[in-house]
């Protein structure tokens, strides 16, 4: 948000035909190209996992970056969606598309309940209510039989998409995940640039003023919350199918923290920031696993550096430097 206002105010008037106006479509094309090339250079499982987290971070960013609502309980929607997707695929024998749909709806449903309660408060109280709800549901996940406690739901079948495409094939799975991610990403972008998104930004900047203009801000906030929870659910369900496991990690509070970290590192309130942030955080966790106990320390140092040196996040700083919207 800051990044954008800065960029706009600092930029000299540019001619209408400048490439700067096309920065978002260009960046999107670059992203699609990278996604197409990535499996040749990186381990596809890693890229797929990162894509799920990228979608999760984008969903989270929709709420904080554009609605100004800091939810500290997004693991609830992500984790419970992955449990339901895994359970429906494994025990009920749902095909992957229905399993993912089940998980996504679960995320949305929890979003309606938690959101309706949480949006009545603001700032730190809002964050605390979302955290409390998430922790409550974490304990259900820990105790309930079907979640498998600390073992999680394992050996989730990937199945055949629409009964035709065998997802056990790595390439098929990759294309499916990339398609889901891009669909979610485009939806978020559409929401941000819609009149609804504009009202959301107005609420973020000054809620009383938005109310005085006649907007029922609670409705907008709730809708944003539910959208964000649903998309987080989509990300969680996809992850359960990709990694074939749903575990406590996904519903526990550090996951809520991690998604904040992803959005922060990449750049809050930028469209591409959360994607980059998710890739950075997931890459750290994966490629640093070999160094053992230093993972958490390195992660902490990077977080501190981010807050101290580039507050607008990687993409936020880049956008400000190039004077474009990203």
């Amino acid at each position, binding site marked *: 948000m800051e990044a954008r206002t800065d960029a706009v105010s600092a930029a000299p008037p540019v001619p209408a035909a400048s490439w700067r106006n096309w920065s978002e479509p260009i960046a999107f094309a670059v992203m699609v190209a990278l996604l197409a090339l990535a499996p040749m250079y990186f*381990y596809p*499982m*890693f890229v797929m*996992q990162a894509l799920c987290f990228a979608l999760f971070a984008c969903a989270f960013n929709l709420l904080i970056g554009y609605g100004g609502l800091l939810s500290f309980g997004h693991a609830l929607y992500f984790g419970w969606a992955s449990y339901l997707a895994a359970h429906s695929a494994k025990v009920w024998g749902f095909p992957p598309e229905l399993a993912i749909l089940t998980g996504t709806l679960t995320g949305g449903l929890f979003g309606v309940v938690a959101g309706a309660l949480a949006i009545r408060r603001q700032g730190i109280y809002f964050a605390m209510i979302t955290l409390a709800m998430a922790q409550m549901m974490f304990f259900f996940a*820990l*105790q309930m039989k079907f979640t*498998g*406690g*600390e*073992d*999680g739901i*394992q*050996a989730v079948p990937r199945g055949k998409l629409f009964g035709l495409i065998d997802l056990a094939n790595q390439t098929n799975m990759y294309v499916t995940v990339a398609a889901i991610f891009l669909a979610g990403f485009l939806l978020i972008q559409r929401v941000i640039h819609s009149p609804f998104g504009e009202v959301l930004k107005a609420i973020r900047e000054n809620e009383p003023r938005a109310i005085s203009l006649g907007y029922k801000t609670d409705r907008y906030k709730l809708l944003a919350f539910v959208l964000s929870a649903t998309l987080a659910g989509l990300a969680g369900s996809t992850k359960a199918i990709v*990694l*074939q*496991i749903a*575990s*406590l*990690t*996904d519903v526990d509070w550090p996951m809520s923290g991690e998604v904040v970290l992803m959005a922060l590192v990449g750049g809050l309130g930028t469209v591409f920031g959360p994607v980059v942030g998710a890739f950075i955080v997931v890459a750290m*966790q*994966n490629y640093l*696993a*070999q*160094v*053992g*106990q*230093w*993972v*958490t320390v390195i992660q902490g140092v990077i977080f501190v550096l981010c807050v101290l040196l580039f507050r607008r996040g990687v993409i936020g700083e880049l956008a400000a430097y190039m004077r474009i919207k990203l």
Partner: protein
Amino acid sequence: MKSLLSLTAIAVALAAGSAQAQQLSVKIGVMSDMSSLYADIGGPGSVAAAKLAVADFAKSNPNVKVELVSGDHQNKPDVGSQLANQWFDVDKVDMIIDIPNSGVALAVSQVAANKNKLFIVSGAAASDLTGPKCNANTIHWSYDTWMLANGTGKAMVKTGGDTWFFLTADYAFGHALERDTGEVVEKNGGKILGKVRHPLNTSDFSSFLLQAQSSKAKVVGLANAGGDTINSIKQAAEFGIVKGGQKMAGLLVFASDVNALGLQTAQGLSLTESWYWDLNDANREWTKRWQTERNAAGKFPTMIHAGVYSGITHYLKARVALGGSPEGKDVTAKMKATPTDDVLFGKGVIDEAGRKRHDAYLFEVKKPSESKHPGDFYHLRATIPAAEAFRQAKDSGCSLVKG
């Protein structure tokens, strides 16, 4: 000309083939908890044990090239399964060992089965790994929950501890441990006087311990793990439970936990282990080498570390016997067909379900005055022979067991 070419090709292929037979290269991944609550029972100590096993094996088999990699699963099943996938697919790891976390171990066991590679569990406790969730690519080495429950439960009842009270961590693992131990106690003529469930990662056990104390049970069974066990033992010492005549039975306690607690606090605690460093000369000698490798004179290896050494040794023997680069299932079959023999666990076998069978021991932690040298932790109270120490394959519920 054509025939000459094909002849050369055959010659080259043959030469390459024979070179491969001579030079066997194996890659082993030690996946453990390097930084958190299980880092002491597994972690860097497991890597040290693996290095010793590789070094010892190289002495007698100089033509085998073994490469070790290690990684941290951070106690997250998803991180573990992701890392295992990557090791098998990208880094061409042949076998993964250790994993002191049942959730992660179950996940990695699935991955090993999918990729037809090999997984030797030394660190995790869940007996399901060789029970309903067994597969032909997994071997469970050092210990399991069945052995712990059976060893401690049965031996305690036989030595007079016939009334029990359970202090149970309130999640699936704690419940399973309590249920299994309770069954053993009742089967051997003991009685369960009561139980109390405490939340995971609790710091205050006072009300639970007071209930245990007032139950007048002869044995207080701790069906919990890690930090919860340490805290409950510490606070039990403060309440004077052992001094009051009750016995404490730790259902999942390792030598490293006793070392961390100190004998003053842990004295009188009964526990089952399958390996103890101070049991014989071979173990003591190996421990010295382990301490040098680990660069930690004050630490003592656990049965998990010993299991990593023993497991890798047996695995490498099977690989040399088979030669080439066989599939995971063939290696486990060979490992099951060959009796095990190494300096730490002695002779043993691996049964159909993938369970390595060896003796287990019931120990009691010494009083500080009885301890003669650093690491002199235990009195040996009973030896449980290999045939009884582990669940019989036919009772395991494992689909690999025929008949």
